[in-house]
């Protein structure tokens, strides 16, 4: 036992063959993924550094609580769970495509790659909806003593500490006309903008239900930059993964790998796709769970 193990161990480094027992392209894909892991790692760790330097940070359960088609229902983490499920599922279909490739089954490879591409597109669509929802969201936030209405962007974070009671009334008194119009429009979507703009400040203030109005301070400004930067960088990886998978799908369908005699390219594309899923596991952890 021991002697054969030693014999095998020394044999790997004698030259003439890959000491890693993999084909060159696959090894280079692994090394690329390591460097990409450090890029993502640096982004997520810098996010952690900034978060650790703050006394207060937005609660993800408040920020990510919307689901398409449910209006203002409070459904924390529901949509991102769906996105996670979609990505895990597409990882499974990818590994099934690789599996069919091992057996040289062209039809199977094409079928499972097709599902993988579909999963990737579904994930990107979900992310597009989520971004749109965050950016176009309307939240009342303290600003220059008054109240402003902002969404979650790289320049604005409406998820600070909650403001209550007298502080709200006081801020409302100092709120300029155009922001009062925005506040009233939040509750009265049916009223035309011109009609609201023509009203006096006192009348507008009277239309605002201060008990229903949730006002927060602005949160740490870095939140939006990190969120859109990191999920955007991940989304770009998903996008390029979808493009690569489409190319693999077309090549598999036209019989390129069949003529080549092996499906190693599918394995390399698969490594990249699983890495995208792997990164999402950590993005999910850092932004949505803790």
């Amino acid at each position, binding site marked *: 036992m021991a002697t054969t193990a030693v014999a095998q161990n020394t044999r790997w480094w004698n030259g003439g063959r890959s*000491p890693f027992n993999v084909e060159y392209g696959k090894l280079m894909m692994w090394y690329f993924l390591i460097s990409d892991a450090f890029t993502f790692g640096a982004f997520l*760790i810098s996010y952690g*550094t*900034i978060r*650790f330097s703050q006394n207060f940070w937005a*609660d993800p359960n408040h920020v990510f609580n919307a689901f398409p088609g449910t209006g203002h229902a409070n459904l924390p983490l529901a949509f991102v769970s769906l996105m996670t499920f979609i990505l895990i599922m597409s990882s499974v279909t990818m*590994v099934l495509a690789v599996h069919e490739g091992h057996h040289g089954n062209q039809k199977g490879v094409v079928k499972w790659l097709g599902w993988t591409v579909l999963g990737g597109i579904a994930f990107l669509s979900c992310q597009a909806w989520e971004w749109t929802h965050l950016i176009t969201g309307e939240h009342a936030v303290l600003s220059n003593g008054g109240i402003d209405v902002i969404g979650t962007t790289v320049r604005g974070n409406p998820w600070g500490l909650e403001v209550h009671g007298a502080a709200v009334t006081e801020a409302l008194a100092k709120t300029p006309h155009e922001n009062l119009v925005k506040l009233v429009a939040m509750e009265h979507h049916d009223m035309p903008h011109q009609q609201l703009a023509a009203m006096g400040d006192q009348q507008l203030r009277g239309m605002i239900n201060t008990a229903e109005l949730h006002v927060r301070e602005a949160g740490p400004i870095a939140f939006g930059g990190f969120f859109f930067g990191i999920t955007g960088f991940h989304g770009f990886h998903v996008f390029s993964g979808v493009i690569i998978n489409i190319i693999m799908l077309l090549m598999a369908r036209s019989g390129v790998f069949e003529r080549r005699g092996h499906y190693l390219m599918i394995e390399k594309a*698969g490594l990249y796709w699983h890495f995208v899923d792997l990164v999402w596991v950590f993005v999910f952890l850092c932004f949505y769970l*803790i």
Partner: protein
Amino acid sequence: MEHSHSTTSEVTFHHAASDSTKRIWRTFWVLLGLTVIELLLGLSMYAFNLPGWLHLFMKGVIVILTLAKAYYIVSIFMHLGDEIRNLIMTIVVPLMLFIWFIAAFLWDGNAYRTKRNRYDTYFRESTMERPLNSADTSKHGFE
């Protein structure tokens, strides 16, 4: 470039391709199960007002579950577990840098916060959820 035979000359031996997809689907259920547990923990942190230590403990559990998910994805889906030791080591050993990377930078962020709380009164008072008891030095460092 590519040869017509089914292997490249660089590969010395092939691992027998498994005949069933059972392992893949089992891994899928494991990943799904771990994610559901993570979600339940995350939601319970939101639903119940937990004491600080328990809150932190649950976050720790979620991090460990995430590492378990990462292990399953890399080992089974990316087939790293089926490769020879040389390849596993050339990938895993450089990733050990993350231990220092995470510890050093989170420590740095935390040090900045405690320093700022100690010297910047406005920052401390405007960003704390509850006003601090001046005897409680745990949040702004020891005098």
